[in-house]
């Protein structure tokens, strides 16, 4: 890295609804999607590059994503393969606190983390939903997530029977 060049240049991104956000290169590289994009134009191009349009992420969600990547920009990020089947693990209290948001925001965050390819954020946000499912009955899950019950009594009985063999008693 050149001495007279800032070690972590500014990068701008634009949300789907046209709001511009400024962040740093180091933070934005946590997104696999943007990393691929930047690698494609070459490092020298970064400073001359205009704002990166992100047509699948709205401003509310992008703000949340940027908060997360800026906090984690110096941490080593696992690849999606490494994290795929990771189970219970220590969760950074900052992350735990960060994920305290309503479900709407959480769904948007999950889709954004998936689109931007940020494996650790995708893992954290999907795990958050999995934790909400924990120890709930199907009816509780339906009301929590506002899902319509589309089974007939006969159908549900048949499915319950199928499940019997691996229910923990």
């Amino acid at each position: 890295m050149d001495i007279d060049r800032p070690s972590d240049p500014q990068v701008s991104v634009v949300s789907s609804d046209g709001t511009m956000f400024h962040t740093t290169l180091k933070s934005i590289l946590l997104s696999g999607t943007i990393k691929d994009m930047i690698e494609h134009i070459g490092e020298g191009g970064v400073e001359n590059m205009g704002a990166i349009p992100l047509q699948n992420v709205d401003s509310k969600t992008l703000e949340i994503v940027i908060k997360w990547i800026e906090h984690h920009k110096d941490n080593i990020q696992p690849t999606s393969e490494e994290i795929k089947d990771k189970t219970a693990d220590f969760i950074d209290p900052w992350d735990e606190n960060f994920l305290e948001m309503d479900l709407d925001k959480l769904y948007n965050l999950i889709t954004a983390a998936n689109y931007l390819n940020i494996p650790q954020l995708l893992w954290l946000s999907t795990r958050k939903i999995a934790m909400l499912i924990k120890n709930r009955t199907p009816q509780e899950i339906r009301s929590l997530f506002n899902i319509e019950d589309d089974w007939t009594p006969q159908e549900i009985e048949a499915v319950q029977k199928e499940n019997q063999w691996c229910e923990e008693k």
Partner: protein
Amino acid sequence: MSGEFLNFETLPEELIIEIISKCSSSDILSSSLVSKRFNNIIKNSSRILNKLTIYFPNIKHPDYYDDIPNCNQMKMSASFISTKAPVECFHSSLTRLTICYATIYGSCLSKMLIYSCNLKYLELIQINYLKESKKLENLPELKNLNLILDESFVRLLKVLKKCEVKSLTLKNYKITEMDELQKFLKNQRKLKELNLINIKINLFYDGRFDKVNFKLEKLRIEKTKIPNNDHFVKFLSNHYESLKCFEILNADIPNFREVLMKFKNLNELNFKLNTYVIDNLPIMKNIMKMTLNRKRILKRWFEKFPNVKRFKNE
């Protein structure tokens, strides 16, 4: 995404799988009852189904046995599988059984296998302790079996001696005792595929595998050290006519080039060598011409090309 109303139900399938695969076995079951879409996604995702654990010692009512669905995959992990486990619930439809991290009674295992008479894949990994292994004499003669074992079961290979194994995978094996393996292989005349993965001991240290009774069609050697001696070549000489596919991943084969030339019917070669230096392209081309389906091999050859450390131009 903007302005669009998102709901857990309307998330794309891949994200629902991402979420539910992080749930425990019982939470997966609850989720499968939430809606038809969830049920469908769960039933069709092997990534989620692999998380399901069957708790045999807990199923107490004999009424249940009839209701075991025609599933063809079962995985039992972290279980204590006692003699009272209702092994009758193993269906003939079961084709794949994985038992890992389990303590199991020999009589129970043998019963399970008797009931699952159409088993094609049997994986026994990290068996903590096999009780009363002497009661395993009555094991059925499973045909065409794909067997996957690690060190924890290799010692007990004798109990599977009547099975006709088509494919054998040995992983993570470091015990120096090889007699069981030798005896087992002696009876396997139909073995077509052998996968050696992360074998720490030197299987070809002495001549015990010089002459074998099976003709391999596929051989895969991964993370396994092959000694530079005659025994490995002698082992390979059993398969010069039959071998069709040879995979060498992160392993070194001594005299690779010479060895390769002997195979008459090889048409698939997949390799990623550690250190082996291929310094003579014309010879390789001759080999390809002589023995290989050229188009296929050339494609694979060049795909693997970056792994060749040194390369002399023609």
